[in-house]
């Protein structure tokens, strides 16, 4: 093993090394070119469609989402559900466990755009960073609860029901960070008063609406029936559709901003 030459033991390896060297010479060629602020952001941005596809797939793969599981189900029903759908629950949740934090790069693109806003202080940027990590971590906790329930579906039905409850409560009620995030963004865009604002003004109002749409889900613990229950119209459909719309719309808005920044950056270099 030790005697093996450093280069050339596999074709793929040579290819990688060559690519790195080419990239290095490109960077070295222009010594004045230190760091373009928006460099590489397009790469981050174009991961988003892939992430969206995985999320959608996981969403439909999890049998508890398409027809949301009822909080009124008895312990035995819940246990039966986990026994019957063990595989689908496991694979969908493993997918979501992998990719739930993939929202953070999108949020960081937003945070980088906020640098260009006509603000006096970075306070609102810090606010968004402060909540950006917590929402995906809350979702991560959810997947852990559901995976735990599916890990041993033959355990006492009451325990499976408990883990299922914990998962659903975390999933449904765990909106505080998303609500605050929308609020901070709405405020930030509202304060961005300049000739060429970073984001169009309607994005502020859009964020406000999304934030308000998420709020009712926080009350899902109060009832097991009706629109506010975790399988209800407001707490499940309105909330999750709002999150989906937010991700899509903000991706498009940020995508535009990244493109124009990139064009401006290329112009400056030329």
């Amino acid at each position, binding site marked *: 093993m030790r005697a093996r030459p450093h280069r050339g033991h596999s074709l793929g390896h040579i290819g990688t090394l060559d690519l790195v060297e080419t990239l290095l010479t490109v960077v070295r060629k222009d010594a004045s070119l230190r760091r373009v602020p928006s460099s590489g952001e397009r790469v981050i941005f174009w991961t988003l469609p892939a992430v969206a596809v995985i999320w959608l797939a996981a969403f439909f793969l999890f049998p508890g989402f398409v027809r949301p599981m009822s909080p009124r189900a008895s312990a035995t029903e819940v246990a039966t559900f986990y026994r019957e759908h063990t595989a689908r629950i496991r694979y969908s949740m493993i997918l979501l466990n992998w990719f739930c934090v993939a929202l953070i790069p999108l949020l960081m693109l937003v945070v980088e755009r906020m640098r260009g806003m006509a603000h006096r202080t970075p*306070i*609102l940027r*810090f606010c968004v960073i402060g909540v950006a990590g917590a929402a995906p971590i809350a979702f991560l906790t959810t997947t852990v609860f559901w995976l735990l329930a599916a890990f041993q579906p033959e355990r006492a039905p009451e325990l499976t029901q408990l883990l299922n409850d914990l998962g659903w*409560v975390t999933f449904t009620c*765990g909106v505080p*960070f998303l609500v*605050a995030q929308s609020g901070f963004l709405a405020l930030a865009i509202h304060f961005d008063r300049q000739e060429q604002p970073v984001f169009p003004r309607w994005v502020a109002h859009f964020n406000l609406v999304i934030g308000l749409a998420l*709020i009712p889900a926080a009350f899902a*613990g*109060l009832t097991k029936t009706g629109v506010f229950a975790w399988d209800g119209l407001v707490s499940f459909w309105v909330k999750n559709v709002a999150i989906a719309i937010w991700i899509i719309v903000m991706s498009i808005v940020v995508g535009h901003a990244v493109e124009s920044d990139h064009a401006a950056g290329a112009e400056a270099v030329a």
Partner: protein
Amino acid sequence: MTRRSLRDNPKRELWLAWGATVFFYNLYAVVFFLFTHIQPPGQPWYSPDQASTWFTEHHHGLGIGLALIFVFGGLSATSIALITYSIRRMSVSRAFSYSYLIIYSVSAVPGFLFICVALTAGIMRPERSPQLQHWLYQLGFLSFSGTMGVFLIGSLIWMCAILLDGNRVFPKWFGYLNLCNALTEVVVSPSWIFKTGVFPWNGLIAWWIDVVIFGIYTGVFITLLRSMIIREDFGTGPLPAVPAWRFWQSPVETAP
């Protein structure tokens, strides 16, 4: 104040964050003491049946109070952001401010999300077996009182920044008060071990004395952040000293 004065005020972002901080801590106190009766805490030595009864007795207060935390909990980020800003204004490396920001934003999940989730799950099914209700009860209180390291290290980072700072953003005595606050996180640790006496999660030493110190600490830092915003000149050098008479002046100033 008029609409115009707020819009032109260069410190409006700071004042909004400060106002949100005040709102958040007041809401926290109201929810925990008045609505949910999470404070004063339930007894750590409760039997499963007693824990189960505790959930049914506090059903409505817990439901509404915890829902309010689920709605507004994210506002905790405003105080974190403001403190991060204050550390950035100091003459120390930005590593301090970013460490503080990350540590405290991580703290949100174990610090208040766990107790809200556990107790909400508890009130949703009063008919659940008392053994499981008991487990939820303990998960709630222990995760709330027993989330220690993030606040310990966070306070120490803020302390170091204040003591090393040459821009007199905060008085040095507040740096030492951070040490007192950090030590309360050491003192609360026996709550993982005891169910009775003065050291459990509702104990006189492990809980109540710490709550008083934390209350003083919070009141002091909110006041000092206010004074920092008043003195802020958006420069990089030392912050101007605050004359005593201006300290209590109306927070909104005209733009320079």
